[in-house]
């Protein structure tokens, strides 16, 4: 404690720039200034013409101002105050961008019947990425729990508000969503269902395999090498290879079955490996004490080893989940209606908005899984072994 505050004191006169946040802010700035935030297209499939920043109305200028503010804060402020200012700027930038997009869409393609569309430009993606980096840096600098949660809530409020009143409904990707309708939601649920089912299977198979690996040397050698090799097979190749054994069993080589098999296989490695590592890194003296006090092997596993291995195990599940949410797009090639289908159709028909309608939700699902499983990990980790006590 004393050492920490001493070093903080020493830093105070010579403020350190928050380099990560500065990078994010400059990225967002570049997105606004150097690239088009939005593009106007005559109809659904032609390429767009870039629009100027001002097309987004007042919100666009606010976005610019917030990016500059974030950059300034990262250079000139310090400590908790800086983290909070950066966090507020990050939320503000995301909100302002949405309103600017909505404004441009509502003003340039106001007519529901006209084929003209305003779509999200490259600059907008760069700006979102920049704002996300600022957000990440700010949260890392410990603005306090209330601010962290508050920022998330504020973001949700801003997104909902922009969707309802900000003209987002006239944006090309939203129009595309309106066109796709039920097909979109079916793709979302198929995606989640395939990834979720596979993850469930992978946990059910992988955890026992990991436990067995930690107990029996030959099992470890066999399991870890087989699972490792399977991991190196490219996903499309694995789907192709699965056709043969499935056909031999009289089972279809396309559809959900091979998809679930493939996704389960990919999810296995991180789960098996992390279960194994989690169990073997338990301090041997802890195990010895437990045995010496009369715990049975099962009690030792469930009461001591499993809780100690749990954080690492869940980290494996998280990595597996994020990975197979990505691979679930690929199984669209063997007749599964995941979000991958929208991406493929979008490519085929050169409808960028359709591609985005597949890609953006995929990212959101992966982020949600990541955040959710991290939170679950914190929940099941005893404060006694938590990395940082917040």
């Amino acid at each position, binding site marked *: 404690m004393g050492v920490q505050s001493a070093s903080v004191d020493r830093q105070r006169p010579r403020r350190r720039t928050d380099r990560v946040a500065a990078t994010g802010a400059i990225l967002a700035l570049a997105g606004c200034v150097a690239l088009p935030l939005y593009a106007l297209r005559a109809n659904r499939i032609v390429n767009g013409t870039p629009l100027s920043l001002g097309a987004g109305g007042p919100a666009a200028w606010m976005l610019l101002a917030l990016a500059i503010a974030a950059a300034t804060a990262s250079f000139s402020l310090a400590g908790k105050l800086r983290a909070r200012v950066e966090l507020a700027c990050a939320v503000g930038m995301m909100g302002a961008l949405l309103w600017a997009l909505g404004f441009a869409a509502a003003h340039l393609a106001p007519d529901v019947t006209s084929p003209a569309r305003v779509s999200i430009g490259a600059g907008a993606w760069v700006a979102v990425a920049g704002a996300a980096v600022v957000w990440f840096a700010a949260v890392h600098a410990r603005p306090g729990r209330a601010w962290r949660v508050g920022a998330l809530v504020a973001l949700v409020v801003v997104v909902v508000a922009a969707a309802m009143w900000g003209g987002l409904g006239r944006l090309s990707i939203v129009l595309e969503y309106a066109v796709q309708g039920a097909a979109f939601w079916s793709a979302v649920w198929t995606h989640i269902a395939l990834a979720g089912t596979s993850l469930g299977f992978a946990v059910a198979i992988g955890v026992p395999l990991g436990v067995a690996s930690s107990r029996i040397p030959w099992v470890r050698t066999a399991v870890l090498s087989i699972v490792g090799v399977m991991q190196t097979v490219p996903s499309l190749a694995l789907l192709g290879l699965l056709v043969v054994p499935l056909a031999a069993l009289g089972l279809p080589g396309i559809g959900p079955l091979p998809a679930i098999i493939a996704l389960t296989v990919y999810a296995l490695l991180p789960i098996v490996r992390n279960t194994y590592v989690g169990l073997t890194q338990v*301090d041997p*003296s*802890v*195990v*010895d*004490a*437990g*045995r*010496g*006090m*009369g*715990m*049975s092997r099962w*009690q030792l596993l469930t009461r*001591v080893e499993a*809780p*100690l291995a749990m954080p690492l195990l869940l980290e494996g599940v998280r990595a597996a989940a994020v990975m197979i949410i990505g691979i679930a797009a690929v199984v669209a090639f063997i007749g599964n209606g995941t979000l991958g289908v929208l991406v493929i159709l979008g490519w085929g028909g050169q409808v960028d908005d359709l591609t985005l309608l597949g890609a953006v939700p995929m990212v959101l699902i992966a982020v949600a899984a990541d955040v959710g499983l991290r939170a679950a990990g914190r929940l099941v980790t*005893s*404060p*006694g*072994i938590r990395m940082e006590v917040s």
Partner: protein
Amino acid sequence: MIRLEEVTKRYGETLAVDRLSLEVGEGEVCVLIGPSGCGKTTTLRMINRLIEPTSGRIMVGDRDITSVTPEELRRGLGYAIQSVGLFPHLTVAENIVTVPKLLGWEASRMQARVGELLSLVGLDATSYRGKYPRELSGGEAQRVGVARALAADPPVLLMDEPFGAVDPLNRERLQGEFARIQKELHKTVVFVTHDVDEAIRLADRIALMRDGRLQQYDTPENLLDHPASKFVHDFMGADRALKRLGRVRVDAVMRSEVPRISDGSDAVAAAQRAACTAERFSYLVDQDGRLEGWIDCRLLDRGGSAESAITHVDWRATTVRPDTSLKEALSHMLELGFRSIAVTDETGRLLGDVALAGIETTLTEGDAYSAGGPAEGGAQ
């Protein structure tokens, strides 16, 4: 209470323990000692079946230990090890009730037991209950480890170098506390160490091993005075007289009638009253009896000012506790250059003192040192 009969453990070519026969009486502390690799740990772990002997038989109570399952056996034998092995994800309280939980005690009984045990090992129950092991110092962790071993009140304690990883000052304190607890609880203890002083201080009997074989099994006194072989003699060390002092507690030779002056309000008046006593030094204490220093009366007699005759001291640095060993007290005295040293309780209240002369008497009187041994009446 514990009997090993011709117990042998073989690892391939190496004989870790070779036809070891040993009997530990009820309420006795048996210390296994010997050079590293002589088979102490192996012997200890065979008693709770963490290691199965190659041959031979081990009895605990009047049961062959193979007549029950290893788990059932171990729940009746307290187990503490050098690395402690506290469960890092559980609180101090949860760690302590490990065995009671396995035995299915009621929650309220376990709660109460935690409080009892924490105060027994000298930790404040309210502030330590909810702590996690990583928040404990080495000495505190070791105390919790001992509390955990004692949790279900097992008649037998198995301890493998329990104080081996603690710094010397804390080790000395933990040994004192162990001796106090043992005096209270009368457990049958098998205690592994490689520290001769620790063995002499804590043991009723010492089993000295070498290469898996028992060299001598006897009281510390006999090991020091009548070593069975040159190896035993050399292992116990040359300073045998000094080592014996490790077995005697300060309170066994402490003089409690010491001249003392309560400082009251006026130090000068106090100093003048000190001049009346026959002794050269008078201890100076505050109203609560806490040691503040002493007065040299000879300086007063020579007409020195009261101020110059008073030495103020911090009791923490210049006194010993009643359960300190005489060896420790002697080394303190030599370090400070005193011919006597004050004895206080944990709060600094003056209880008496020990003089160099008193220690000399102990050294020459053969029987004096068994009187204040850690297990009174346990050893002859």
